């Protein structure tokens, strides 16, 4: 399993004026579960193709365990990839599909080794029951498991790239495939890069998440860090449903503004719907008026709602078990917030 | 796309040369007078003349032949496509009693050897007084081009989601408005490919065209075979006529080239 290092790697399509991928440096350590999160069009696929060798970077170098692989084609980088839709050799059985990567590259392994290896991977992904079924006659869920198996069967695989692998799987069983994949990654200690636009998949799978937007990596950090302490307003907005609220400091009440002066003197304040406490008008200095109410369900017997509030001419969302009606004046106490100045984090307060 | 291995690239190049040589030779023959051809063997025509081409364009036997050929090809294509459109729409949208059997029966007609129909066509068309007219040849060719058109159009049409038909109904459009203003324009590339395949069959066919025409509607293909059997073959003129018959094909192919490949697969020819 390799350590992946990107040194100022950038890419611009021929004739395109803006860079598809701005030069970036990134480190994925040996055997790490890493995920790449970004909306469609953020440049995820370009970065994926640079790692897999389909595209050559227009700037910067790529190192696998300190070996410069920038010029090498995919096949020479000993990596494997799992695609959005299961890619199998239709004319082979499941077992043959799993064994195939071991029979190529002139590695004349003896059949016993191959069978052993295939059995081990099949057990890890609990698909040993369908080994001699035709690759065409199994469910979509099983097909993707076989594709993952094929990526893991080679002992010398440097890294496994996963390109939104759950797209074709029905929603109800997605969590089971995620669990199997995470288990296999931990047991086999394979370096894995999981590319997706879905935050649940990114935050669940990875020890470290890189958030990508407009061809730039805005932040790389642990799931808690990236969610609780976003370094960019975009990261705060992109993660969470609904995303982080933002209020300009200038419109906040004097008392709050004074305190913020020496907490990084932010220009805008970001806080999550669940990090604000809603109560009757006057209780706290930040005030607003209820503009919408959406019930989420009940918690400990009380009805939980997502309130839309109008603070000046800005709208924010606050999650609360209070029962208010549209038009009620309310006040908000911020238990946890992050301060931003032109989009970059300058301060934060309160630990969740 | 496919890994274009070296060998296949060389074979492709070789085949292109193999394709071009006879056509090149046809052209050189067309540029040389008959006496010149009989005289010396030349790789490159030393004294090329356009006499043969002029002969084709002036001699009524020749250009009348072309006119006749084009008339029945156009007639056939019009009939085939206009008849095949409703049928293909119905095959792609509805399941009805005997639809698969009908589709198979149509296919067998496409595959029927023309020679089998020489005899009956000859009698059929003379009995209804259509012998020696372009319509006779056009209708005879319909036996082969209509099934082909239905097959290709159905292939393309089943690629258009049925929700579009539903949407038009919900918007309040009549079937006719939907069919002419929405459905046909969406399938215009399919119609283009179908015209190519109809043209391809009707323009090249000789047997039926010869049997069903006398002197009046004699197509170019027949005119060419007639001169072959005459004494003292005039190779130059024949080659020039040959060049003229190749040109329409190239034109048609150029117009439908993007959709051609798609047509082959969907058309399943």
């Amino acid at each position, binding site marked *: 399993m390799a350590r992946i290092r990107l040194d100022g790697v950038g890419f611009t399509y021929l004739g395109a004026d803006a860079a598809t991928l701005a030069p970036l440096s990134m480190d994925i350590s040996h055997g790490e579960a890493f995920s790449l999160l970004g909306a469609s069009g953020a440049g995820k696929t370009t970065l994926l193709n640079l790692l897999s060798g389909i595209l050559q970077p227009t700037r910067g170098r790529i190192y696998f365990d300190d070996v410069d692989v920038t010029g090498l084609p995919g096949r020479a980088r000993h990596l494997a990839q799992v695609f959005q839709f299961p890619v199998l050799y239709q004319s082979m059985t499941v077992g043959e599909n799993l064994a195939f990567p071991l029979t190529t590259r002139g590695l004349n392994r003896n059949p016993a080794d191959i069978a052993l290896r295939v059995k081990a991977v099949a057990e890890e992904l609990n698909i040993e029951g369908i080994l001699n079924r035709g690759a065409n006659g199994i469910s979509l869920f099983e097909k993707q498991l076989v594709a993952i198996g094929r990526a893991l069967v080679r002992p010398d695989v440097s890294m496994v790239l996963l390109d939104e692998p759950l797209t074709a799987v029905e929603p109800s069983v997605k969590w089971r495939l995620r669990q199997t994949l995470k288990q296999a990654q931990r047991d086999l200690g394979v370096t894995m890069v999981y590319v997706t636009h879905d935050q649940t998949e990114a935050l669940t799978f990875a020890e470290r998440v890189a958030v990508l937007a407009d061809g730039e990596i805005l932040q790389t950090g642990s799931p808690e860090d990236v969610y609780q302490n976003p370094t960019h307003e975009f990261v705060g907005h992109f993660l969470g449903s609904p995303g982080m609220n933002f209020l300009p400091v200038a419109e906040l009440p004097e008392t709050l503004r004074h305190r913020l002066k020496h907490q990084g003197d932010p220009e805008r304040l970001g806080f999550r719907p669940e990090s604000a406490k809603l109560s009757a008008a006057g209780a706290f200095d930040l005030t607003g008026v209820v503009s919408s109410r959406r019930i989420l369900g009940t918690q400990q017997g009380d009805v939980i709602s997502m309130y839309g509030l109008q603070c000046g001419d800005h709208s924010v969302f606050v999650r609360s078990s209070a029962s208010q009606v549209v038009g009620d004046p309310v006040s908000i106490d911020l238990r946890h917030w992050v301060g931003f100045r032109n989009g970059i984090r300058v301060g934060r307060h309160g630990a969740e | 796309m496919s890994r274009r291995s070296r060998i296949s690239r060389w074979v492709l190049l070789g085949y292109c040369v193999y394709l071009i040589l006879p056509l090149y030779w046809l052209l050189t023959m067309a540029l040389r007078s008959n006496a010149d051809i009989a005289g010396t063997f030349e790789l490159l025509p030393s004294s090329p003349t356009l006499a043969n081409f002029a002969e084709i364009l002036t001699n009524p036997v020749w250009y009348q032949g072309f006119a006749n050929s084009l008339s029945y090809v156009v007639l056939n294509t019009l009939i085939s496509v206009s008849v095949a459109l409703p049928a293909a729409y119905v095959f792609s949208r509805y399941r009805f009693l005997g639809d698969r059997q009908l589709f198979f029966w149509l296919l067998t007609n496409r595959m029927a050897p023309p020679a089998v129909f020489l005899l009956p066509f000859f009698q059929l068309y003379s009995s209804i007084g259509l012998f020696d007219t372009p319509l006779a040849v056009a209708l005879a060719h319909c036996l082969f081009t209509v099934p082909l058109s239905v097959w290709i159009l159905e292939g393309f049409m089943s690629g258009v989601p049925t929700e579009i038909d539903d949407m038009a*109904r919900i918007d309040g459009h009549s079937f006719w408005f939907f069919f002419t203003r929405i459905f046909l324009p969406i399938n215009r590339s399919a119609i283009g490919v179908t015209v190519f395949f109809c043209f391809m069959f009707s323009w090249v066919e000789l047997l039926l065209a010869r049997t069903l025409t006398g002197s009046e509607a004699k197509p170019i293909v027949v005119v060419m075979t007639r001169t072959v059997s005459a004494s003292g073959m005039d190779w130059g003129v024949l080659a020039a006529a040959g060049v003229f018959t190749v040109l329409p094909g190239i034109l048609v192919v150029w117009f439908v080239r993007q959709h051609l490949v798609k047509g082959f697969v969907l058309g399943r020819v």
Partner: protein
Amino acid sequence: MLRVDRVCLDGNEATAFDYSFAPGEMTVVLGGNLSGKTNLCRLLAGLPTRACGDVSYKEQPLTDLPPQQRSVAVVFQAFVNYPNWTVAQNIASPLIAQGLSREVQEQKIRSLAQTLGIGDFLDRNPEELSGGQQQRLAIARALAQQADVLVLDEPLVNLDYKLREALVLELKALLSETQATVIYTSSDPRDAFALGDQVLLLEKNRKLQAGTPLEVYQQPANLAAAHLMSDPGVNRLPLIKGDEAGDCRAVRPEHVRLGSEAAPSADTELDFEMQVDSVERSGDETFVHGRVNATERADVTEHWVVRRPGMHSVEERQVMTLHVRRDDILTLVVD
């Protein structure tokens, strides 16, 4: 008032049901795959479908009318637009069918395109637009028809995660202004809460239950109805003395509290032991998957999912205590 009588969504009498859609309000039809949602939409619109039954609007029967003569507009799950027409022509399509004058059409197209944020794409054709914009176009066309009934068949399911969230809010504002009776089908209970004045639960072409989102959430008629209103579905509890055989007891994933959370177990709560299998985190919520063994028989284990707001770091492969409030436990009929 839009009514359906003796409707059988898969064509067989056994599943027939009646339902009247609250006029001028939005009804969310909630059901999983193959529950008959799409067949219901096609029946209301008059499109060919296996479903049968009588449809009437303000006591006028629509059953035998073709779609052209019903004032019903539809937005399909796939983004269906006429590829050979421009965005403007697509929106104008129902107006053309209604024979409105050019000026009226122009004016309506512009205002609808503006409200749906596709104002500056009017002369493009649909394929050039993004998925979200193509669906906005389909919605604009449906609104242009100004029909009495507006049907949206899982319109956002093919969209990107963040886009779906934004469009649900937009749709809520947009659809609350129209007087039309709106029917919105979905398989996600969040849509029921976000959009539904009323909720109709469907499963295998049968009507399970109907009512306001909160009613159906708090008093599910049976196990299937309970499952539909939670994503992931409810956790089953082992039976205790005094329950009839047919009953079953269950608790919603969001009503189970993790032992690791501050408050100790109160006497109003029951405790359970869970063997944690895996933990899923989406940032604002954490899902803990595991196996809970029934107190009576040690060998019978139920697969449970615990859904907690916020980020919780839970170690996998550990045993964890869970607390459930007695009044959160649902006693359900299993039919």
